[in-house]
């Protein structure tokens, strides 16, 4: 059976990658380790983006908002309350979840590209707020000099790149594992069903908005946690870290990874971010050019990952007797 083989191969590759990541800090130099740590944080946001975009069918450009909320919450807690990683992680996740919960009313009823624009607005607004709320965020110049964390009570603080990286790796692995488990349950099934044909899901008695809200909040929590990882990895945060280009790159990374697969999203996002950071150091002045060409190339190299018509933002109009999804109705409006 072909699928079987593919699944096995995927498993093997995943195992290899994980092993590689574990030994990485001892074989590569500090720079690479530092970059990797930072990349892990962003990849984790990528996972939350995939959860919404691919699994729940809410393509998002706004995950930078809960991400930022988590990061700043963590920074504040770190400098004023506690330097214990677990605490900061919890607070950050909480902050992300709360922000996501607040924005639920904006997104649950929208679909496709409309969600994309609403979330984009949310992200941009978040950045503006960060820039002006100087007492807490330090304004557009950002927050520096954040105290190093200790993963757990009684453990030493993370003083060097290796330790920070390993901390990020452990957290990321745990959270991704949790997400994968969650998707194996009924929740995953229902989300996929909703993405396929929402009207049908309703017609068999499911509370779709409830599920979507749940997914949105969960994604927010993950992004928030990722935020605290960024603080640890970078010891500095500024609104620039949460700007539009970050969310755009993350979305594209997720697309490259094949929207519906969490593992793919993780890898995709990581690759895109790493490529960017690496190129800006390596090819001063030509990074955007090369990055752009890479994107174009991936479309041709990864036909299966990208060219599936499934990841459409505007599904084909439903047949007459199924209620049209809001956005199609929007189209209908416009065509009256």
């Amino acid at each position: 059976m072909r699928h079987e083989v593919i699944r096995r191969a995927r498993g093997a590759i995943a195992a290899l990658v994980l092993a590689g990541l574990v030994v990485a800090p001892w074989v590569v130099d500090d720079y690479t380790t530092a970059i990797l740590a930072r990349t892990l944080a962003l990849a984790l946001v990528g996972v939350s983006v995939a959860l919404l975009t691919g699994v729940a069918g809410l393509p998002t450009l706004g995950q930078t908002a809960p991400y930022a909320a988590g990061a700043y919450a963590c920074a504040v807690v770190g400098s004023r309350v506690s330097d214990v990683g677990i605490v900061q992680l919890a607070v950050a996740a909480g902050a992300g979840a709360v922000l996501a919960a607040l924005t639920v009313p904006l997104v649950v009823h929208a679909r496709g590209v409309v969600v994309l624009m609403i979330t984009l607005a949310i992200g941009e607004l978040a950045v503006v707020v960060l820039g002006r709320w100087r007492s807490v965020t330090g304004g557009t110049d950002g927050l520096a000099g954040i105290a190093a964390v200790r993963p757990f009570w009684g453990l030493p603080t993370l003083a060097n790149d290796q330790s920070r990286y390993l901390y990020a790796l452990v957290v990321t692995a745990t959270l991704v594992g949790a997400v994968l488990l969650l998707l194996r349950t009924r929740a995953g099934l229902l989300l996929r069903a909703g993405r396929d044909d929402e009207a049908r899901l309703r017609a068999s008695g499911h509370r779709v908005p409830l599920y979507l809200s749940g997914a949105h909040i969960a994604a927010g929590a993950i992004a928030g946690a990722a935020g605290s990882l960024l603080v640890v990895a970078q010891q500095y945060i500024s609104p620039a870290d949460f700007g539009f280009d970050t969310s755009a790159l993350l979305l594209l990374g997720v697309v490259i990874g094949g929207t519906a697969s969490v593992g793919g999203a993780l890898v995709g996002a990581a690759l895109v971010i790493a490529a960017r950071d690496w190129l800006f150091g390596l090819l001063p002045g030509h990074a955007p050019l090369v990055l752009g060409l890479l994107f174009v190339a991936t479309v041709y190299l990864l036909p299966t990952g990208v060219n599936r018509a499934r990841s459409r933002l505007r599904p084909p109009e439903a047949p007459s007797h199924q209620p049209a999804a809001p956005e199609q109705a929007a189209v209908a409006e416009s065509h009256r």
Partner: protein
Amino acid sequence: MLSVDRLCAGYAGGTVLHEVSLRVRPGSIQAVVGRNGAGKSTLVHTIAGLVRAPSGRIEIGGVHLAGRQPHRIAQSGVGLVPQGRRVFSRLTVAEHLHLAAAPWRAPTSGGEGWTVARTLDLLPRLAARLRHRGCELSGGEQQMLAIARALLGQPRVLLLDEPCEGLSPDLAARVRELVNGLAADGLTVLLVEQQLQHAIEIADRVAVLEYGRVVYDRPTAEARVDPAPLAAMLSVAAAPMPPPPNRSAPRLWADTPTSPDPSER
């Protein structure tokens, strides 16, 4: 006219059609029946170029078509009434007709060409719905629209995938008459039909598809004489078969009082 030779086709999931061969003479109707999932639509789609055929030949008037782009095939005179209507949901009925109409394409069948007016008085219900968009039509109306769309393309070869699905019995009967008449005008027709009776009623040959293989392909005359084997193959009660179609005079507009009771047919 339309000939399919040892055609294999399928999807990523696996091969569906195994060495299917059919030969449809000009002006004749070839019926294809078979269980759900047997491969009928796949056959139709492959001929229309919507499904790639790794091996086998598809010829129309001696021209090899397999592997061509769908629009090329359509240009060479193949009309399709797909299963499930597939009308354009955002276009109004009028726009459908305007789009499909190809007056510049000479009517290749013997009869006069199909104009919007002619299709409308064949399917009067559409005339009353000109401003409705595809997604605002009832199932049957969509089916009518799909038929009209195919006719307006002035096809030489017509592929009908369950054209009567969702049509009221009388309208279905009228559509069968229409198809019959078209054949009389020299059109080549491939008709996929679920109800054997209806297939036999107008077809010249009937083929049975089973798991993507042609397991039966005979003139309907034989089936009329001895329906047993065919009926057995489709495991239906061997009901008395309808009389052979009268091709000489298409009775399109002769109003035939039909009743909603099949037992009276």
